[in-house]
């Protein structure tokens, strides 16, 4: 079985936000909910870098650990999914997640949280594959069609790679060896002169 992983190559990401837009469109997520976002540091300065981030589908997922109703599960592919029928919108997964992945549609007054929504690695939810309920609640299930997440497919510079962890790291390692430009050996500039 594969172990699905995301990788964002900061040397390539140009902050075009195509991944964000592709995801929003593919899953028709509600207004205010963004399953993916791009974060730029030193914006507008020399050395500006960006990374696209969504749910990272952690092995020991913090959201899963703190959920009071235990609505999360990890698929055989290592994708962390949740059951929206069980979610009570308490917000605990948001408190625990380091990546800010859990999203809440606002439901009712004073910012009351609705059912949590997050990146599914384009893997749908617990409902039957390609069913109307699955589409409504979790968006499209591309994994069941044999396809990979659309954000990575759409990435114009192929900065964002998604798929089986072994293949993703092979791709990235090859890229690092071949590419020109700034060396990847961190600290060597400072440490060595020959």
């Amino acid at each position, binding site marked *: 079985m594969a172990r699905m992983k995301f990788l964002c190559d*900061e*040397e390539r990401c140009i*902050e075009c*936000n195509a991944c*964000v837009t592709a995801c929003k469109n593919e899953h028709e997520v509600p207004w*205010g909910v*963004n399953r993916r*976002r*791009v*974060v*730029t*540091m*030193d*914006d507008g300065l*020399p*050395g*500006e*870098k960006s*990374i696209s*981030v969504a749910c990272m589908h952690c092995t020991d997922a*913090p959201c899963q*650990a*703190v*959920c*009071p*109703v*235990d*609505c999360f599960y990890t698929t055989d592919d290592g994708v962390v999914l949740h*059951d929206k*029928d*069980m*979610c*009570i*919108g*308490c*917000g605990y997964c*948001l*408190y*625990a*997640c*380091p*990546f*800010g992945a859990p999203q809440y549609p*606002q439901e009712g007054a*004073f*910012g*009351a*949280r609705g059912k949590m929504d997050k990146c599914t690695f384009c893997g749908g939810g617990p409902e039957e594959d390609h069913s109307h309920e699955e589409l409504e609640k979790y968006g499209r299930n591309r994994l069941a069609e044999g396809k990979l997440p659309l954000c990575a497919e759409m990435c114009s510079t192929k900065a964002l790679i998604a798929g089986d962890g072994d293949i993703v790291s092979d791709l990235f390692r090859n890229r690092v060896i071949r590419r020109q430009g*700034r060396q990847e050996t*961190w600290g060597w*500039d*400072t440490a060595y002169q020959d």
Partner: protein
Amino acid sequence: MTLSKRKKMMSLTGILMLLAIFLLPMTGYISTGFANENEQQAKITNPKSDYWRLVRGNEKGYSAVKGRETNELIQGSGQNWRALRNGPVATYGSWMIGLTLAVLALFYLWRGKVELTHPRTGETVERWSVKERRIHWVTAILFIILAVTGMSLLYGRLVLIPVFGHHGFSAYAEIAKWAHNLLGPLFMVGLLSMIINWFKYNYLNKIDLQWFKDFGGMIGDKHPSAEKLNGGEKMWFWSLTVIGIALCLTGLVLDFPNFDQEREVIQISHLTHVITALVLTSFALGHIYIGTIGTEGALEGMVTGKVDTAWAEQHHDLWMKELRQSEDSKSG
């Protein structure tokens, strides 16, 4: 060579050697110079490492996706929150509640009910007015609902899911969450009116110290003096005031996400909320025990508002004396 000449040579070489020791290491400056040119070069860093340095330092960047903390790539304190909530807070919290229950049960088996030492006189005096009783019971019922629903969120996954199943517990937890969020602010109103109304009875003094030294008459045969409220009741009042207000304020932070409070504030508030709630719950168990099965005649004071004079004489002698005096002065 004469001896004096050799001595002179030796001291000269010594001085030369010392000079060399101090000066030779400084020859490095001949090749590098004293200028700051090299420091300028050292400032050119790897942007990739800069990125991660900023991210791990919780620096905020820019994101086209607007919203609360969307420009923060990684927020690390959630890991601490998770570890503390799932670990020590949940573990020691359950120990505290469990031990309180066990101690109360054992105490009841050993001491039994604190009974009236003198037979009832049949004559009653008013202890709590209708208004006071209304505040007490509204706040008390809200406290119990909030304690049960709140603990369901902390321990339900461990205790209730095996009983009701995932979907059954989730249906209950949804209602519990809403009840907790809606009734919480009401409890705060009840607690504040309790603090305002009973503040005047709760100044601590030496009588209360003696009351505690005699274990409030619960252990042994002593009948320590007490005013309208005894030392124990006063301590319960001050716990509710201090811990209760912390509980309410942190509850408000959690209840209203529309003010865009950041996750770190929420995490700290949540932990404070859970700890204060568990402490107050175990205190409340003690209060409920003493007010019901622990003391004969205590509950009727808060239910009917009136207590028997025999009870008042035994438990709150100074208050009774005061009542008698004011009555005498009225009639006289």
